[in-house]
């Protein structure tokens, strides 16, 4: 028993041997395990690529091996950067992200092949999404490394809280207010900003900026949210005037639905606010208030907006309604996959519209089946669990709240997308983190994970050997603190 328990540690102790020489001894930082897991991911991704090329009747060749090595090199470099600048960060976050991103690339490539075949039959050429996704992966990783290098302590972010909040709000509102030629309406949503051939969704970055703002805001104003107001039906309700922040968030998310016509972003935004208030106050009544506001918003908005009715109609009657075409195709694809799937490269996922982006989970389910889809959900679960563990271990309230909010953002996106694709909830336009094709989403999520790793590093890092103690501050300064009397 004792033997097996120590086994997982062996790579870490041997791998971090060089590190131990400079750092204070005795705290394993487990970077070795990270490297081993990254190697495992590279093997999986390479074999997935090889399987696809075998099943598509083309010879696998040595090219596949080069792709695999390039993937390993890219994440190996990131690993070295983590070793250098965040040596005590969580060992599992980077491998899990690498798995999702790598597999996402493989699935996108898979759909590209299908699209190309279909286009050839129609006498056209389809443009492949995989090359640009590789580029975005590289950009995301560079940003990831830069972030963990520049932000050496996450608490410095709290100082820029209001700047972040303002920037986030502007970014969120930008597509809504800009004229149509800069912010075009794509697929019914006015979420993009495109300059020339470059287009991105500012909401993906706004999400993170606003998370930073809320974390800092809640840390300084926590009292406000725990002040009990009237007691009614055995529940302590907050005072009416303390509801303002929630109402503002609610109004903003309604505004997104109305002006940008995007349900997903609005849902994500409001969900993050609610959960962060809940984490900060531990009072479930905030969730109840938020959910009833949400229900109210839905009831009011539903008869007014056609695009909402379409979504709900497609959800309730995917097989008969006109707007349920995508969902119908996806459901049939997943049914075709069954328990074990058709094998990579054996299905026809490309006939589902948006099989590379919104419906990438149905692509995975068709070719890998329920068993394969469950792997993805498990990986997301593990990623969220690691994030929540970072939050638990954080040594300061800001880090705790930020890590909690960031990991919630990941899991909530997955829930909304997976629920939408499988027909559990109405389909909304959120992206599957790291998996789906889409540059802004991928880069934004790398920023998110970099912050998580940064907080994790500072919470697991052994305390610095006592820095020169400040020589007993002058008495005049030592006792000039405001004492607040309990009211």
């Amino acid at each position, binding site marked *: 028993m004792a033997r097996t328990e120590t086994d*997982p540690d062996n790579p870490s102790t041997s791998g971090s041997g060089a590190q131990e020489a400079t750092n204070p001894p005795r705290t394993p930082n*487990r970077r070795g395990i990270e490297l081993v897991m990254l190697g495992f991911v590279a093997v999986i991704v390479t*074999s997935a690529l090889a399987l696809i090329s075998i099943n598509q009747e083309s010879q696998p060749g040595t090219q596949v091996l080069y792709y695999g090595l390039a993937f390993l090199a890219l994440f190996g470099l990131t690993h070295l950067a983590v070793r250098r600048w965040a040596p005590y960060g969580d060992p599992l976050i980077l491998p899990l992200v690498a798995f999702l991103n790598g597999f996402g690339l493989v699935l996108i490539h898979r759909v590209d092949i299908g699209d190309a075949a279909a286009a050839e039959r129609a006498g056209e050429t389809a443009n492949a999404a995989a090359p640009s996704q590789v580029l975005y992966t590289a950009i995301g990783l560079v940003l990831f490394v830069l972030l963990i290098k520049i932000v050496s302590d996450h608490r410095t972010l709290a100082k820029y809280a209001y700047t972040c909040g303002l920037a986030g709000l502007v970014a969120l509102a930008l597509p809504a207010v800009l004229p149509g030629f800069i912010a075009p309406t794509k697929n019914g949503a006015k979420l993009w900003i495109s300059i020339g051939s470059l287009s991105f969704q500012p909401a993906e970055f706004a999400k993170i900026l606003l998370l930073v703002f809320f974390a800092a805001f809640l840390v300084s104003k926590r009292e406000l949210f725990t002040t009990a107001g009237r007691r009614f039906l055995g529940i302590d309700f907050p005072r009416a005037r303390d509801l303002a922040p929630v109402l503002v968030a609610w109004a903003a998310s309604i505004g997104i639905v109305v002006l940008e016509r995007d349900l997903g972003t609005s849902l994500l935004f409001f969900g993050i606010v609610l959960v962060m208030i809940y984490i900060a106050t531990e009072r479930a009544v905030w969730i109840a208030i938020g959910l009833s506001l949400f229900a109210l918003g839905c009831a009011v908005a539903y008869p007014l907006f056609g695009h909402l009715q379409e979504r709900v109609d497609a959800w309730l009657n995917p097989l008969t309604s006109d707007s349920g075409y995508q969902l119908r195709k996806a459901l049939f694809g997943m049914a075709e996959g069954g328990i074990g799937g058709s094998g990579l490269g054996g299905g026809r996922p490309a006939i589902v519209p948006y099989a590379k982006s919104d419906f990438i989970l149905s692509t995975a389910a068709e070719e890998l089946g329920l068993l394969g889809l469950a792997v993805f959900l498990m*990986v997301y679960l593990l990623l969220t669990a690691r994030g929540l563990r970072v939050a638990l271990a954080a040594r300061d309230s800001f880090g705790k709240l930020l890590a909690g909010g960031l990991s919630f953002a990941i899991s909530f996106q997955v829930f909304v997308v997976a629920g939408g694709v499988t027909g559990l909830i109405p389909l909304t336009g959120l992206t599957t983190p790291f998996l789906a094709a889409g540059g802004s989403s991928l880069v934004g999520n790398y920023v998110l994970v970099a912050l998580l790793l940064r907080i994790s590093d500072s919470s697991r890092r*052994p305390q610095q050997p006592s820095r020169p103690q400040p020589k007993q501050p002058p008495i005049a300064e030592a*006792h000039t603190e405001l004492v607040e009397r309990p009211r």
Partner: protein
Amino acid sequence: MSELVIQLTRVGFLALLWLFVLAALRVVRSDLRSASGLKMPVPGSNKSSNKGSDKKAKASGKQSRPKSKSPRQLVVTEGALAGTRITLEGRPIMIGRADDSTLVLDDDYASTRHARLSQRGQDWHVEDLGSTNGTYLDRAKVSGPTKVPIGASIRIGKTVIELRS
């Protein structure tokens, strides 16, 4: 490509995927142990050689557990930081609102440098650093360096911490 090989690779690849999940879960499990301080060596043990420190840690951990109950970690049981654990490593732990504290409190009732926990021999002592609202060990106000028994609660503002073995 024959049908049999396709079926075999299909099953094999799914098995590989689940192997990855299991490997990740294994890392989670081992991490749980090391971070909860079970494998951490006793503070103050011989730190001369880095080689084989893991083995030594285990050995010394085994010996000292029944003999002398030295606390291994600090756990925040109440307050905004509830759930945070810090492994004790022999270095003093500073608690307060200052950014460079080991435990950074965001509490109006805590001072910038509120209290310090430090090790003397096998025991940990708590010391108030001239805080405005005081530090309490169980119910008693701490005036000088006071020995902290395992499981006793130290109250600082709204935060309660405990030492555990």
